[in-house]
């Protein structure tokens, strides 16, 4: 989807650490109002996670007892059968692999080209660089749906429709990343380059041995967001992919539910759970990095 550039200052400390620090520093007394806020937040949190708990519970319930009224919040009677059934209806692991491959190639490829271009914009004074950057940045206002029509026609001409390449090739150019990284590189003192150059270092050494390691937090944030956008993408796969064995997981899930011989609801729920649970584990493990990448780049996928 469209993104707009925002040269936000990178917070020196990460958001969650700041929150916890201020939390510790606060010597606030427990007021009745404070307790009310606690209760409201807990209730709101429960309402937010209720659909997810319900999802997991139904996927673990024997089909005849799932979706019962009154709603059950415990998987009784319990079964793993629905998960085994998923594999009869969709090539889950194939699609998981497709999603992983697509996200990895798009993210890594885009980052390499963005790093190279950002270095030129931040560190080399070449004629036309400013105009070039302005032209590229103005493209951020162009909605993805506008360019996807010609790209679809192009991909048809070269016979790449229904392949993952039709999705990762256009993802290799990411103007937002180029802009964000060149802004970040500019915050690193140029004197470091000069010193390295006197020692005989070339552009590639300065970029990959010095600037890239020094920009690790920014690059990690862009990698997380890029991976997330590709992993969850739906519009592109919907337009380009048609065979189940070539689909990514989001498209596979939707097809599972409305294709020919649609799967029963519990099987659909088991498949969604197989997508959501690993994500939850990854999120809980890398919560700090994920929240920080969203907060620092303010990028919506």
């Amino acid at each position, binding site marked *: 989807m*469209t993104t707009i550039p*925002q040269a936000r200052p990178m917070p020196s400390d990460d*958001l*969650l650490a700041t*929150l916890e620090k201020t*939390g510790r520093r606060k010597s*606030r007394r427990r007021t009745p109002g404070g307790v009310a806020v*606690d209760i409201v937040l*807990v209730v*709101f949190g429960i309402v*937010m*996670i209720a659909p*997810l708990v319900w999802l997991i519970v139904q996927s673990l319930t024997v089909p005849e007892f799932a979706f019962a*009224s*009154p*709603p059950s919040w415990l998987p009784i009677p319990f079964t793993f059968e629905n998960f085994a059934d998923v594999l009869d209806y969709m090539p889950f692991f194939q699609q998981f692999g497709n999603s992983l491959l697509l996200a990895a190639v798009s993210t890594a490829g885009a980052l390499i*080209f963005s790093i*190279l*271009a950002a270095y*030129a914009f931040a560190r080399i*004074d*070449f*004629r036309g660089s400013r105009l*070039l950057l302005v*032209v*590229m940045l103005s*493209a951020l*206002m*162009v*909605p*993805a*749906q*506008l*360019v996807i*029509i*010609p790209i679809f*026609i192009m991909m048809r001409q070269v016979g790449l429709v229904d392949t993952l390449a039709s999705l990762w*090739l*256009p993802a*290799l*150019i990411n103007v937002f990343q180029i802009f964000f990284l060149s802004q970040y590189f500019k915050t690193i003192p*140029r004197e470091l380059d*000069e010193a390295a*150059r006197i020692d005989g270092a070339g*552009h590639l050494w300065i970029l990959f041995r010095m600037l890239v390691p020094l920009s690790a937090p920014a690059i990690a944030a862009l990698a997380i967001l890029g991976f997330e956008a590709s992993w*969850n993408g*739906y519009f592109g796969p919907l337009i380009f992919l048609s065979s189940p064995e070539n689909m990514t997981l*989001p498209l596979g*899930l*939707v097809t599972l539910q409305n294709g020919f011989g649609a799967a029963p*609801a519990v099987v659909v729920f088991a498949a*969604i759970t197989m*997508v959501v649970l690993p*994500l939850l584990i990854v*999120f*809980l493990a890398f919560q700090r990095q994920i*929240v920080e990448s*969203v907060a620092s780049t*303010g990028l*919506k996928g």
Partner: protein
Amino acid sequence: MSSDTITARRPGALLQRRRAEAAGWLFVSPAVLLFLVFVAGPFVFAIALAFLEWDLLTPPEFVGLANFEQLFTDPELPQVLWNTFVFAFASIVTHLVLGLLLALAVNNLISRSIGYFARVAIFFPFLISWAAVSLLWKYVLDPTFGYVGQYAAMLGIELPNFLADPAWALPSIIVIDLWHTVGFTFIIMLAGLQTVPSELVEAARTDGATGRQIFWNVTLPLMSPTLFFATIITFIGAFQIFDPIQIITKGGPQGSTTTIIMYLYEKGFQAFDMGYAAAVALLVFVIIMGVTLLQFIGRRRWVHES
């Protein structure tokens, strides 16, 4: 002074200058090439397409301004644009208000465990793909399968069939979108709150300002750059809403949830009317640019610059 101006005075400077030029273009060339093939080229191609009639099977035909004439006389388009603007407006209001309230609440929490729980519960749905979210909510709001309808029935309340009722389908999508995306707004607001200097809040408190006064006169004005950013980014995202609509309602019932990108998808990728789809896409481009520009013009009126 940059290194180039220093070296320019030495002999052989021209050669060095040329070398810098070459290096610069060498580093940007892969990106420029990709940009031409996948952004600039398709953009020009899309504009050209809008003057053609092409179903991808028979050869394209030049039709002049016919697609634009169709755009301005399309009987379905007013409803589609209305749906899209209603969704975008509701999305901005609900996300900003709820996101800010949640950020304020979490920011003032004493209990770290409640803070952790609230943050995870509010933010995690944002990371789930729209595909999974849409399928899940289709069942949550289903009158027989879903727990919302089941609890209502136990209480003797008869709820509408949310996703099948033309009056309720779009509001339902608004609620689902809020559940999915409010975590993003919440994090942006939380980051924005950290930029409000605590000395100012303390100073106001020492001067006897009440909590409400501090919020309206200190916190909110200092948060205005964050609110501005959140407004723009929420508008751009909401105006292009597509995934949940294509998955849950397919634009129905009776066109009550057809938004502009859903319409573009129907015209371009179901009816294969590429020329008209390109014209619709250009309209989307113009509206998003126009509204964003208006917001930047209005920025001076309410955004506090430090």
